[in-house]
């Protein structure tokens, strides 16, 4: 076994090349997150500062009906976003992987192009669609299904639709790459051994594409809690998601320690989701495609 040790030695001389990246991340990610945790146990001072007295008072303030309601609302929205993205996105990714190579390039292009235009603009399109004199209401009025325009814009429904819309590529892409990498002969083998198409799908295809689904669930769930601009643009005055709370505390109330405490709660939730993801065998690499 001389070859591996030689390889090891060579690789060890290269390890320091990673130091600049790590140093950068430790400073701007590690330290800044620790600083936020520190701020969360401080009290706001004048002019965007923080200091003594120290304590858990910010967290005590969070345990109130207002914030718990917002937390539940955010989690429900994120849950439905992940669920619907999976239900709609999985079949799409599956069929896409089975399409001819030429069709696949086209579908991939059509899927990615909107993703390259700005998210705000795509959401703005829904604002037009949902408005009381917008295309949806006009079409419904035109065919006589409704007598008066429906109130669609500035509702929780609009936020939910917008969120699913914004997140669905993050489900389709990881699922697609796991379906594409799948060994189809195993599916054929299970069919030859007498499994029905449904059984073959449930016992062979689905478990083999599970890493993609898991990555997709995490990638659609976590950002949904924090995307404050979506509920800003499509939601009503009573849609107060966790992201909106953090945003308001920081830029309207200018209460840095309290905003930090709200972020720490969100960070804890994120950590929990990632921990579950890791336990189920998920890797960070599955999140970039």
């Amino acid at each position, binding site marked *: 076994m001389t070859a591996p040790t030689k390889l090891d030695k*060579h690789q060890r001389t*290269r390890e320091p090349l*990673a130091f600049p990246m790590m140093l950068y991340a430790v400073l701007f*990610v590690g330290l800044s997150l620790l600083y*936020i945790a520190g701020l969360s146990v401080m009290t706001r001072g004048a002019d965007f500062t923080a200091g003594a007295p120290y304590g858990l008072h910010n967290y005590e303030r969070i345990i109130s009906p207002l914030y718990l309601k917002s937390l539940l609302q955010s989690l429900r929205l994120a849950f439905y976003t992940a669920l619907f993205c999976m239900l709609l996105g999985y079949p799409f990714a599956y069929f*896409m992987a089975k399409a001819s190579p030429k069709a696949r390039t086209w579908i991939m292009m059509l*899927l990615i192009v909107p993703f390259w235009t700005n998210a705000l603009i795509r959401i703005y399109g829904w*604002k037009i669609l949902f408005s009381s004199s917008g295309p949806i209401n006009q079409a419904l009025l035109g065919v006589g299904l409704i007598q008066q325009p429906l109130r669609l814009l500035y509702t929780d429904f609009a936020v939910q639709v917008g969120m699913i819309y914004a997140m669905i590529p993050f489900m389709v892409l990881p699922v697609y790459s796991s379906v594409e990498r799948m060994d189809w002969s195993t599916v054929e083998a299970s069919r030859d051994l007498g499994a029905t198409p449904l059984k073959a799908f449930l016992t062979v295809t689905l478990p083999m594409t599970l890493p993609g689904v898991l990555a997709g669930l995490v990638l659609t769930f976590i950002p949904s809690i924090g995307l404050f601009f979506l509920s800003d643009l499509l939601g009503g005055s009573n849609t107060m998601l966790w992201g909106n709370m953090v945003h308001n505390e920081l830029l309207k109330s200018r209460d840095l320690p309290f905003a*930090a405490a709200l972020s720490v709660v*969100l960070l804890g939730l994120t950590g929990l989701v990632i921990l579950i993801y890791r336990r189920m065998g998920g890797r960070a690499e599955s999140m970039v495609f």
Partner: protein
Amino acid sequence: MKKNAPWANVYMAVILLLLYLPILVVVLFSFNSNPGRTANFQFEGFSLQWYQDLFNPITGYGAPLRSSLIIALWSVLLSAVLGTLGAIGLVRRPVRKSLMGRGAAALMTMGEQVSVLPIMIPEIILGIALLALFTLLGLPFGMVTLVLSHVVFCVPYIYITVKGRLASLDPGLEEAARDLGATPLKVLTTITLPLAMPAVISGCLLAFAMSMDDFVISFFVNGPHSNTLPLKIYSSVKVGVPPHVNALCTVMLAAVFLVVGFSQLYQANAARRHRAHEKRDERERKAVEGRA
């Protein structure tokens, strides 16, 4: 592997249609002469006036576009260096047995995890954390803080893409170069980097798109005189439904379609050239064999 059933293609078409519905509406309304200031979206007549608004030197989108491009270019450049070197340093980590070696390995693992953390946590947390850190450090908010922040979330995309490519390479290539007497630096510049280049480029493209599109983090770390394209769009659509945003979207969409279209065309051409070369090589080989 069976082909897709017809209804499967119908399903894909419906999803794609839904994906494009809001975009098609925006494109259509960019030519609407109705100013629609009060959420009144009736289509009244054809007009190009909203496109003219985009080029207004004071309220137009020229300056924000310029700063977005500058920020994206600097961020991608810095992230490409950090991320690529990181991937070269951390791919195929050696097994260590000594206690100190294992301690060092654990530190490296932690460093790696902190480096990829930005793509896993909600952007708003990173935005606030960076805002707090920059305030603490006393950095003036502006282009510098924007670039520093964009590098934070651009690095993981490049790092993961490049590391994936390096891990799939045959380690024998580098070993052969070393056995033939190349110095470590020479191996790096003549073997490793050229082989990693396709992944570096695709990682950079992804990071560039992320930087150009970022709103949440930029929102927290921008300064009074710096305005990126997404920030400008947000301030426009937040207060109302200005029709020039439709025109802007149409222009951006056209630009993306052009870029993607050209790259597809280029790839198709490259593949065709490759096939043609193979055919020619085959013919030449046969000719040589025939003569022999």
